[in-house]
């Protein structure tokens, strides 16, 4: 299956300028998707998650428009053809 990952401009430098990436995860969860993304782009993977695998506090991930913090977190199901947005949160007011 293929999932489209949409990145903010500030992270595009880590993907050769691409803000849209087609990723083919090995499984159907967000963790599987982020694993596949990190395998291809390790620096990008590290910006999104820390070494324990958790999504960083001020990074928001949306699967088909829904914030995964209010879904199942890293276990959120990601369907074939899904759109996954990675966005910096509002931090600091």
């Amino acid at each position, binding site marked *: 299956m293929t999932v489209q990952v949409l990145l903010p401009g500030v992270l595009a430098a880590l993907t050769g300028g691409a803000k849209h990436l087609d990723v083919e995860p090995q499984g159907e969860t967000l963790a599987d998707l982020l694993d596949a993304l990190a395998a291809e782009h390790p620096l990008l993977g590290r910006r999104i998650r820390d070494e324990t695998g958790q999504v960083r506090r*001020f990074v928001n991930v949306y699967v088909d428009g829904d914030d995964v913090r209010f879904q199942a977190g890293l276990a959120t199901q990601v369907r074939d053809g899904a759109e996954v947005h990675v966005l910096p949160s509002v931090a600091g007011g």
Partner: protein
Amino acid sequence: MTDLLAIGTRKGLWLARSDDDRRTWSLDGPHLLAQEIAAVCIDTRPPAPRVLAGIQYGHWGPTVMWSDDLGASWQETDHGAIRFPEDAGAALARVWQLRPDTTDRPDVVWAGCEPHSLWRSTDGGSSFELVRGLWDHPHRPTWEPGGGGGAVHTVLPDPASNRVTVAMSTGGVYVSEDGGEKWEPRNRGISAVFLPEPPEYGQCVHKVAVDAGDPDRFYAQNHFGVFRTDDAGGSWTSIAEGLPADFGFPIVASPRTPGTAWVVPLVADMQRVPPEGRFRVHRTRDAGATWTELGNGLPDAAWTAVMRDALCADERDPTGIYVGTRDGCVYASADEGDTSR
């Protein structure tokens, strides 16, 4: 000869250079714009000096970056120079200290980090390994975070032995005599005003420096209290007499003159400003027995503070002293603090 000064801020890194014996300086930067530079050092051991920076990316987490061309380009390790092993169950929060070892250990660089941890690199800072002896110390679960977080903020490798000294807020001073395998707290004589009894460990030490002439003589600026030990931390005595306040963050020892050290007193933890707003560096020439106020070129009505790594000395003769304030000023002295600008 060029003198180089690295200035880390929350907005990025500036490099100041002087080509006229420290009379005038030019600023180069910002490098790493909008990144917090929580730690920075210049490793002068390689043929080309390496600038190592502990970056706090804000949203995107902490990492170590380095430049071998004085900031023209920066590198970082794909998977992170500092990353906790899986079984540690921890994630790097901030790099607080980067410290090159001696020329006899040319590729060794130490890092002190948050959460409380010590790291050692053998490749010049491209990758670090967790020092397990300290991480697995039975005291670690009881080390509390200071106001800025719980971190190893000071790393002092002894050039002539396998001794490594670290200081932590909180936690206190710990020393290893075998390069990092075994550690013991060495805080006897250091008070902790926030605890009912003087503890074996848990003090909030802000910075430690080693005397130029005696590797067993350390100076410590604590969260209240300025102290000296002459037996590598076995016992400490107060050297705060003669200072206008015993609170502050940095303490720097001269790299060349035994008995000489500098501090920047602040009123108190709940009043982090110089006494009466008079921004002053204080210097001792006799290992803390007496102190001299140095104010030539430093401002009055400076309601600001100096953090623990914002006071440093260069390796020239006479020693240059550099101090940076939280409101973004840097003062340089080419005469050991007598005059600043």
